[in-house]
Each structure stands twice: as structure tokens, then as C-alpha cells.
């Protein structure tokens, strides 16, 4: 028998416990063991951001994170964003601005956008379109609809902190 490690962590607010192999990635665990297929495997090398999830409040590429390292942490995936009341504000903005094409990159793009909005690098100043583009530079969209993505995030900036 090959080694399996039991881990416990909070997943979208719910305590989760399961066994994983020490070499399994967090993305594989989410998709194959927990059936959360929002995050996508595209490059598998940290280059594209399609697998982006929040770990302890920071976005990471889940294709690079070892699943065993989730133990004791708090994970949030795209599946945890919407509530019974409806879509989360960033999700809704992407819909409203037609920012979504095939959708493959979107779960990662939206998680990174949410992180960016919560971690404005220059806190005193409202984010510009350049700041948004810079903050999303680790997310590649093969349909290359970047303009509308930036439109959507810029709209949320206004909505969340009207001047």
C-alpha cells in the first residue's frame, strides 16, 4: 500500500476530512476526490491561473500546491462564492459585462479578481485599469477577452467603493 495521509481543513466554510497521497496536488484533490470541478487543469505548471483558489485568504495555483499542505487551512473555491441570495458581486459583474466566452479560465480569473479587490496593493488609492490588468497577469484567457474582464472588475471597484 502506498502512503495516504489524513488531512482536515475548511472547504468553503465546511469542515472536510479525507485521505490523500503525499504527491497529490490540491487541484487533483478538489476535482477528483471532492468533485469540485470549477478550478481547471490547463497548464499544470503555474503559468495560466485556471486552477486559482484561495488558501487562508491568499490566491495560489492549486496545480502547484500539495494536497497534504491543505491540512489545517481554510480553502475557498469558486463553488463557495455564490450564496442562496445569488451570484457574488464579481461573478455578476462578469455576466453583466459579457466577460465570459468559453468559460474555461473564468473560475480562476474570478477568484483572482476577488482577491485583488480585497487586497488592493495601494490601499489609499482606487484601483485603475492598469492595476487590474497587472493583478490578473497570472491568469491567461485563451479566448483572450481581457478587455471585458477588466471592464467587469473596474465596475466592481466602483460599486464596492464609490467615490
Amino acid at each position, binding site marked *: 500500500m502506498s502512503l495516504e495521509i489524513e488531512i482536515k481543513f475548511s472547504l468553503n466554510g465546511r469542515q472536510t476530512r479525507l485521505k490523500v497521497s503525499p504527491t497529490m496536488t490540491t487541484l487533483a484533490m478538489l476535482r477528483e476526490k471532492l468533485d469540485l470541478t470549477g478550478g481547471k487543469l490547463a497548464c499544470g505548471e*503555474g503559468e495560466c491561473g485556471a486552477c486559482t483558489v484561495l488558501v487562508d485568504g491568499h490566491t*495560489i495555483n492549486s496545480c502547484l500546491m500539495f494536497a497534504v*499542505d491543505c491540512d489545517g487551512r481554510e480553502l475557498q473555491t469558486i463553488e463557495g462564492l455564490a450564496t442562496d441570495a445569488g451570484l457574488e458581486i464579481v461573478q455578476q459583474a462578469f455576466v453583466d459585462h459579457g466577460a465570459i466566452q468559453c468559460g474555461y479560465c473564468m473560475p480562476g480569473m474570478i477568484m*483572482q479578481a476577488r482577491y485583488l479587490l480585497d487586497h488592493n496593493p495601494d490601499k489609499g488609492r482606487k484601483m485603475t485599469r492598469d492595476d487590474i490588468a497587472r493583478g490578473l497577469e497570472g*491568469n491567461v484567457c485563451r479566448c483572450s477577452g481581457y478587455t471585458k474582464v477588466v471592464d467587469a472588475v473596474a465596475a466592481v471597484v466602483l460599486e464596492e467603493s464609490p467615490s
Partner: protein
Amino acid sequence: MNIENYEVPVSIVEAVQSLQHGDATILAGGTDLTPQTTSGAKEFLRTLINIQHIEEMRGISVDDGRYRIGGLTTVTDILESALLAAEVPVLVDAADHFASSQIRNAASLAGNICNASPAGDMIIPLLLLDAEVELAGWIDGTLSMRSIALIDFFTGPGKTAMQGNELLTSIVFAAPVEGFRAEFLKSGPRPALEISMVSMGVAAVQKEGVLSNVRVAIGAVAPTPIRARATEAVLEGQLLDESLVDEAAAAAGREVSPIDDVRASAWYRSHLTGVYIRRLLNVVGN
């Protein structure tokens, strides 16, 4: 090899005890380890040691003129450090040129150093600061610490002076002297997520046009990141004028030994070396 044990030490002492037989793979942020093990470039050893829970290996502090950065400090922590932005901005600048937000959130400083890539971005500013790394081991039943100059740490691409039973715990350097100006440049065809074709840092104190404390560090142009000592000697104590810049550019060209690879040709890397030293001297000498 199949991993037979998985360990999660919470202190340096615990970690080095797990490491004492030298047949363990250390896991930090995993941003180098995952691609390298997936591609088969690197094999796992018998034990996997996840060091992420060693809190004493995190954080940035200064005490009596010596800075200490814990090995697990992430590139994001460096980018967001008000202390470093005020006192050692070249480190923040290099962090700002590093990969993407997601990678910076995971990537540790020790991981960047231990991966020993000739193109490791955080290494260049640390070489300008004459940094040392602290290594912990477990010898004869006790914790044993040693420190070594960062420049002596690298012995080849992916190779270091660290033993298999050692852990890189922190990076230390003296506060820069009054007037010390350090600048960093990195090249790649796109701004983000780029492994450097050439990276360079130049630092000096400039007084009435004369340079002192000159340090030049270059990445991705040799089997390890280098300090360009002959170029430094050309510049040290001299009045910075056009002919000195030419001389320094020529010296730097002789000190690098770049290769052709998928990212750039050796010729282009040599050319960039000349361009960068001119640009950086222009900034540092002003």
C-alpha cells in the same frame, strides 16, 4: 522513489531531526518542487518534510543593524513589507518583478535560493547586500548552525553547498551604508511570469560623481548567479564618466559566460549585459 513518511515539523529543531539521515525532500511553497517532480527532473526521497508550519522561519526583522528574513517568508511578504520598502527597496523591486500574484503568494525566499537557478530573481538583490544564509543541521544529538556567504552557496545550476541534512533557516545582511543605492533590472519578452534572460543588480554609494562600495550581480549568464568582481574593481573609487561606463561594460562582457537556450541566445545575453550595466550605472550614478 515512493514516499514512505510524511512529516510536518513545527520547529527548526524538529525539522533537522527529521532531516538527519539526509534522505528527505523538503517542501516549502512547492512552486519549484511540483513542476520538477511532475516532469521527472527531480525524484522524491524517502521522507517528505513539509516545513510550512515552522513559524520561527517566517518574518522580516532588523536588530542592531542586521536584517533577518526567515526562509519561509514569501515573495508577497517581501513585496508588502513597509520596512523593506523604506530601507532596502531593491528587494521589494525584485519581488515586484517576480512571476504572478498567485506564485508570489506561495513562493518562499529560501525556496528561491535553494532551487539555485542561475535566474533566481531574489538572489540578485541579496548578492548586492552581501547576504549570508543560515543553515541548520542536527549533529551528535544537537542543533548545529552555520552561516555561509550567499555567493559561496551556489556551486552549479541547481547545486548548492548545502548538505542533504541541512535546512536553510534564514537570510541575513547588514543594513546598507549611508547613501547606498541599489537597482535591479530583469528582462523577458513579457512583463509577467517570466524567467529572466538576464537579470542584473548594481549598487554603489555615489559622492561627487565618485563611486564606492560598488557591487554588481548578474543572473542567467553563468552556471550560477555571479558577482562581477572585475567590473566592480573597474568602477570602485572612480569618477563615473562615459569612458568609465564603456570600460565597465567591456569588463562585464568578459565576466559572463552565457549559453544559448530556449529563452535567448548567448549573443543576445551578452548584448543585454552591456545594455543593462549602462542603464543601471546611469541610475545608480545619479
